[in-house]
């Protein structure tokens, strides 16, 4: 757990710096890291917040970036579906990518077992701390770093890395490329609608390609 959470801590530091460099007041940045607790969605929302995009565009973007969690939640249900609703929602909210990956690796059989509860909460607490501490540190240090250095760009590089790790086969390359071109080409649209246009274009192209070129092997069902 130490290796991956070290990488995540560095990313949290970058996110903390990027939030302040994008112009968020410090208390707002602190609230964002503590409550939203979703690095990719936060970084993706920063240029939109800076440009004064309408709320629904910001939330649509955050929702799309977070869509992977919807699938995770279906999986969590197999382990914790018997718990009361408030516990389910709390554990779902606190469980991020790394928790999911490690938990599913440790408990491949999707069935409840008593030893899962302490394992789950150990991972959750550890992950929360190793995200929030460096993120707050980044917020605190951001003002000491000159803006001209362009360190907010580290956030762009982090998102680019996440995007690369989502590429799986030519169809995703095409869909991603179309989304990138659409986002730039439609940049002049009001209300930052270029983001929505680009998401729609990328998903549409991907789904059309799925229809034209079926996968060689069946998708693994989650």
């Amino acid at each position: 757990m130490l290796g991956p959470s070290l990488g995540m801590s560095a990313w949290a530091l970058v996110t903390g710096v990027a939030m302040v460099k994008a112009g968020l007041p410090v208390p707002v940045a602190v609230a964002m890291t503590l409550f939203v607790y979703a690095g990719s969605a936060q970084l993706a929302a920063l240029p939109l917040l800076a440009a004064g995009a309408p709320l629904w565009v910001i939330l649509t973007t955050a929702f799309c970036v977070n869509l992977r969690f919807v699938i995770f939640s279906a999986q969590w249900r197999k382990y914790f579906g018997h718990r009361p609703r408030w516990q389910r929602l709390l554990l779902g909210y606190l469980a991020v990518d790394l928790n999911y990956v490690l938990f599913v690796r440790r408990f491949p059989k999707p069935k409840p077992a008593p030893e899962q509860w302490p394992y789950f909460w150990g991972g959750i607490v550890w992950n929360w701390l190793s995200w929030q501490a460096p993120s707050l540190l980044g917020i605190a240090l951001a003002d000491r770093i000159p803006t001209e250095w362009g360190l907010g760009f580290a956030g762009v590089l982090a998102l680019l890395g996440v995007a690369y790790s989502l590429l799986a086969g030519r169809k995703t390359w095409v869909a991603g490329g179309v989304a990138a071109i659409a986002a730039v080409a439609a940049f002049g649209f009001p209300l930052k609608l270029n983001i929505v246009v680009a998401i729609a274009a990328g998903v549409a192209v991907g789904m059309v390609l799925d229809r034209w070129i079926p996968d060689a092997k069946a998708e693994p069902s989650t």
Partner: protein
Amino acid sequence: MTTAQLVIAIIGMTVVSVITRGFFLMSNRELPLPHWLMQGLRYAPLAALVAAIAPEIVMTNGVLIDTWRDARLFAVAVGSAYFVWRRDILGMILAGVAVLLALRLGLGW
């Protein structure tokens, strides 16, 4: 944006975190995973991420850059090469930022 608008945006994004992470945990009955969601999931996060970052890399003040002497392009190129080599996001950020700082502070790009 005013502070009030920012606070509303953060409340909204918090709700998005809760809804997406708890999506299939909310109902007391088991819901089947719809097919369109599986399909959209494959492309929507990628499209959203790429849409957010592409303008940050190739545009300045809302205009496509017309010079190759832009530190960001080299930072992305070197970072991407590092990622292809090692598949490591942390190293990619460090390599990209190192190039960015060298070109910004050294050559003023």
